């Protein structure tokens, strides 16, 4: 399979391709499982937090654990950089972002999250659909200019692929031969709109050929296949071959966000049929079959996930609102007299009230 041909190439959908473990050692597989378990537990907990009034809203990634963990696991954090949307909690967790700082956005504490993007190698949480895809291209081109080996990993969805910015980004990247990987999580839905009403031609990866870019379409519920596809794409970009597309076919099992009611636009049957095999269950079975892990391992992984979540929840519950002065503080590096005047009046009036 030559994935460096322009045009979509599918890996991981046939059991033969997906169920082999190209370069992953048993401890890596165990790590992948543990990550997915942590992400799954935190994700479902976050939905519960919202129901309990701990956070006002959340965009669950249930079903996309393999796509997020597998892709982020392939990053070289010494030099690469990831650009998330609003749904990449699993990416953040995989690359080791402070999860209280990450989840703070969903507590409405600060837009974009409170982690340090430069240290974390993760751009701020992005609420504009397709908003950061061009940033990834610019950042990647910066690596070329600097002669550094970093690759940008740009996350976006099937819905986002309709935005003009994605086209501009792909074209810029291909013209400039920028080291960027466009990683699409095609999860079947953009809120209520199914992929077939969104993505003409049926897949985002099919568009790559038009830009002279190679693409891989991968079973997004197979964490190993996702890892492998992303690793190859990162290598491709890192070795000067330019941008590449990876499209992970997965399924948004939950609602779009805690404010959404999927029952209005899809049936439970749809969900059952389209969701495919559960990413965690799938890896678990395989590890058991391969003798890579036993029940104790899984129990321990789940216990770790539970205690992690407990700590994060405690952090989130303890997180107070930011002082209002920060509204003014972070607008500029160099503030302005007019802003200072406004900040002063805000302070006086707040004191008064």
């Amino acid at each position: 399979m030559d994935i460096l041909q322009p045009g979509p190439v599918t890996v991981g959908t046939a059991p033969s391709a997906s169920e082999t473990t190209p370069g992953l050692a048993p401890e890596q597989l165990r790590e992948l499982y543990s990550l997915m378990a942590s992400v799954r537990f935190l994700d479902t907990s976050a939905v519960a937090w919202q129901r309990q009034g701990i956070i006002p809203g959340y965009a669950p990634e249930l079903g996309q654990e393999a796509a997020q963990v597998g892709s982020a696991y392939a990053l070289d954090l010494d030099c690469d950089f990831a650009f998330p949307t609003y749904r990449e909690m699993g990416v953040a967790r995989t690359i080791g972002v402070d999860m209280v700082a990450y989840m703070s956005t969903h507590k409405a504490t600060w837009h974009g999250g409170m982690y340090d993007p430069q240290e974390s190698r993760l751009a701020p949480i992005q609420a504009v659909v397709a908003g950061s895809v061009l940033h990834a291209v610019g950042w990647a081109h910066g690596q070329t200019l600097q002669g550094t080996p970093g690759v940008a990993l740009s996350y976006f969805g099937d819905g986002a692929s309709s935005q003009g910015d994605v086209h501009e980004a792909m074209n810029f990247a291909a013209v400039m031969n920028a080291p960027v990987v466009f990683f699409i999580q095609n999860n079947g839905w953009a809120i209520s709109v199914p992929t077939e009403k969104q993505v003409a031609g049926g897949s985002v990866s099919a568009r790559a050929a038009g830009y002279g870019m190679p693409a891989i379409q991968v079973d997004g519920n197979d964490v190993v296949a996702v890892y492998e596809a992303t690793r190859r794409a990162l290598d491709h970009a890192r070795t000067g071959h330019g941008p590449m597309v990876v499209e992970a076919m997965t399924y948004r099992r939950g609602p779009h966000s805690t404010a959404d009611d999927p029952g209005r636009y899809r049936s439970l049957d749809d969900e059952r049929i389209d969701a495919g095999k559960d990413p965690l269950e799938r890896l678990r079975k395989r590890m058991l079959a391969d003798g890579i892990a036993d029940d104790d391992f899984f129990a321990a992984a789940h216990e770790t996930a539970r205690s992690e979540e407990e700590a994060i929840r405690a952090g989130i519950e303890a997180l107070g609102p930011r002082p209002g002065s920060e509204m003014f503080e972070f607008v500029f590096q160099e503030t302005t007299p007019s802003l200072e005047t406004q900040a002063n009046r805000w302070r006086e009036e707040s004191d008064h009230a």
Partner: protein
Amino acid sequence: MLESTTATLDAAVEYAEVEHLSMQQALNRALDDVLTADPKTLVFGEDCGRLGGVFRITDGLQAKHGDARVFDTPLAESGILGMSVGLAMAGFHPIPEVQFDGFAYPAINQIVCQIARMNYRSRGKLPMPVTLRVPSFGGIRAPEHHGESLEALFAHVPGLKVVSPSDAHDAYHLLKYAASRPDPVIFMEPKSRYWQKGPVDMRDGGTLSGARIVRPGRHLTLVAWGAMVARCLQVAELAAEDGIDVEVLDLRWLKPIDAEALARSVGKTRRAVVVHEAPLTSGLGAEVAQLITQQCFDTLKAPVERVTGFDVPYPSGDLEDEYIPNIDRILLGIQRVLEYRRG
């Protein structure tokens, strides 16, 4: 121009006299009526079809009017607005939605350079009867870009008209009115008021052009629009306890602004405060203040005060109440105006 009549689309629809509706229901009914009365009307946007919109404003409309007339589009705002231009050229009356205020930005090029100019460019041969619905303003603790106030931008664009209702009655009638005009109208819906119920006189919209005095008063005029109108009414009640009789003027039309109504009201009260959620600098409050000053210079007792959002990006939910003009800040603005003495 904006004629002082109720919408005249109503042949096909039968009404009860007064209904108690939320603004969401009122807008939904307005769209239903327009779709029923005018076969050229199309309602579309992201999630507007099957789902009925993330705010349910288009709820049930696809089932009733069919998926040719009420439909989901791909996720691309420039596409939605650009397509609207072509549909208008083909004789349709598009009522597109952008899902949230902040997502109007990707469509600005099509709005400013195309929708607002096609009538002009074509010397009147290609009218653009496009009513763009924009769930607007803040106050619902939403994610980034979901609490923006774009009225100053829209009002500055030649070729656009801009309106924002503050209650269910106006929402119902202004939307029907806007949708029946031959010019593009940006219809800014105060999303924090969607679930607020109020009486809607289904038959008689009253005067739909220009501003509306929602509370008469003698001492000072509060000018507001959208969600700030209700807040100003609260403020007026509180001020009344201190013997201050505040007039509240709902501007409604943000372009064209009803300059006469401003002059009439402030001509009487001789003091004015303008309130909006958008940032201060170059906000629509400056235009309102200048229109008042220009017309009432001789009688004005104090410079017009602006109580607005700050020149900062709309903050996250936790800081929303620090940003949006609250009752205290508006009261303090009123106090500054009342206490003003020439130096």
